[in-house]
């Protein structure tokens, strides 16, 4: 009786740890820390289909062939349960080994999988993965092990589903659905952070506003579907033309924005000019037509333009973009005080 209470307490704290986890690795860590107090096993595995990951928590002396057998068996059960079939060597393994047994009970290097309990991780009829307890001894698991594992699996599936939903909501809220670039909301938040960092540390920061020239013509002559295709092509060109630390977003319509952290004005001009030329020299395949496009760009920079806020940086880049448009398009313009004075009505 006392043992059952002890086990129930361990089960309770395992479930609590799983339900308060904020990422899959944490779920795995809490399972790894608690499960040896509940079950006698050689290897415990979690297969998570979405990220195509297989975590294994194993006895230190677990030989590699045993590990391979465990992986194969988990994937086999997963496929029997209507999940897709995966080749074992396609799945990245994350293995954590720990001393689960006393020295005299170390596993035989030729040990094979003799018993297992494998349960699907299911939510609302959807199979998300599976969990598995494995042992090199026959008949190692009983009814109580199965009951406890099913409770743990139930909680894991619910928490993992929660992660999945959270990540898709997060994606919807930060990405532009057409181009896959960040959206305006995200970029403004990101720029706020970058600007604060730059103002505080006195490091340079450049902002580039990009607008496709005469885009209305593309929509009017080729159609809106083709227009959308052109936006996607330009988006991927922009994305592939910047550095890893830079951020590209769709600001709205045919307008894009680039945040170039730790970048002086001269450097940002070189980057913008390179992109402008690249667009000019690319023939975009849109529907059945080949289209030539050009872009106009406006640059603002901290500290060169003495902006005091992200709003000011945006306004300055927008002003420079206006100058580029007014100056004949297919141009890169840098903000100047003169142009600002020119547009502000007195």
């Amino acid at each position: 009786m006392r043992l059952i209470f002890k086990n129930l307490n361990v089960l309770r704290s395992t479930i609590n740890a799983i339900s308060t986890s904020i990422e899959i690795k944490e779920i795995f860590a809490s399972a790894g820390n608690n499960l040896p107090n509940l079950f006698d096993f050689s290897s415990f595995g979690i297969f998570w289909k979405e990220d195509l990951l297989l975590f294994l928590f194993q006895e230190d002396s677990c030989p590699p062939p045993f590990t391979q057998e465990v992986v194969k068996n988990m994937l086999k059960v997963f496929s029997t349960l209507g999940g897709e079939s995966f080749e074992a060597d396609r799945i990245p393994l994350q293995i954590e080994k720990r001393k689960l047994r006393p020295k005299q009970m170390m596993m035989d290097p030729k040990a094979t999988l003799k018993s297992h309990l494998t349960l699907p991780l299911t939510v609302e009829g959807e199979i998300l993965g599976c969990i598995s307890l494995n042992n090199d001894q026959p008949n190692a698991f009983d009814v109580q092990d199965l009951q406890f594992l099913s409770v743990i699996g139930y909680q894991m599936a619910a928490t993992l589903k929660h992660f999945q939903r959270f990540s898709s909501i997060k994606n919807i809220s930060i990405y532009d659905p057409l181009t896959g670039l960040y959206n305006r909301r995200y970029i403004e938040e990101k720029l706020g952070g970058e600007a604060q960092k730059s103002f505080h540390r006195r490091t340079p920061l450049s902002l580039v506003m990009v607008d496709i020239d005469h885009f209305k013509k593309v929509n009017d002559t080729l159609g809106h579907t083709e227009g959308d295709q052109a936006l996607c092509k330009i988006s991927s060109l922009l994305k592939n033309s910047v550095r890893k630390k830079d951020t590209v977003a769709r600001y709205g319509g045919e307008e894009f924005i680039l945040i170039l952290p730790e970048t002086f004005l001269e450097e940002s001009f070189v980057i913008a000019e390179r992109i402008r030329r690249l667009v000019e020299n690319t023939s975009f395949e849109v529907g059945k037509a080949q289209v030539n496009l050009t872009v106009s760009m406006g640059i603002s920079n901290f500290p060169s333009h003495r902006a005091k806020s992200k709003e000011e940086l945006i306004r300055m880049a927008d002003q420079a973009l206006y100058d580029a448009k007014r100056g004949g398009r297919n141009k890169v313009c840098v903000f100047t005080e003169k142009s600002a004075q020119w547009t502000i009505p007195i």
Partner: protein
Amino acid sequence: MGDKGEKGSSDLVLDLYSNLIKEIWEVVSALIGEAILTFLFILAIRKLEEKYSFLNSLKVSEEGVSLERVREDCRTVAPVEIHRGFQSLVNHLSHLFSALAEGVINKELFPKVFPKFKEAERIISQK
């Protein structure tokens, strides 16, 4: 007369499997939980629905399995066909249980399932 007799044994077979499925539900849901069991039932039905279309009328939810619609849909199905359909369903479930937990679930289930299979066969052979 023949039709009446056939209906009678269909009902008997359905009663028998209704109890059997209820029993499977009670035993197995206590071991692996309702969510997984619901999933397995649906999986097994999907596997057999082409051959035994009346199994599609089983209503499976986390509250259990209801045979109400099957009774209506099986009025024209021969008792032996009903028996075979449910027998295949139970066999497939048993195969899934064994894939998941080797003998742990089936060991609990077998003593309850086996006599009812025999009973169904007896009813069919008496017809």
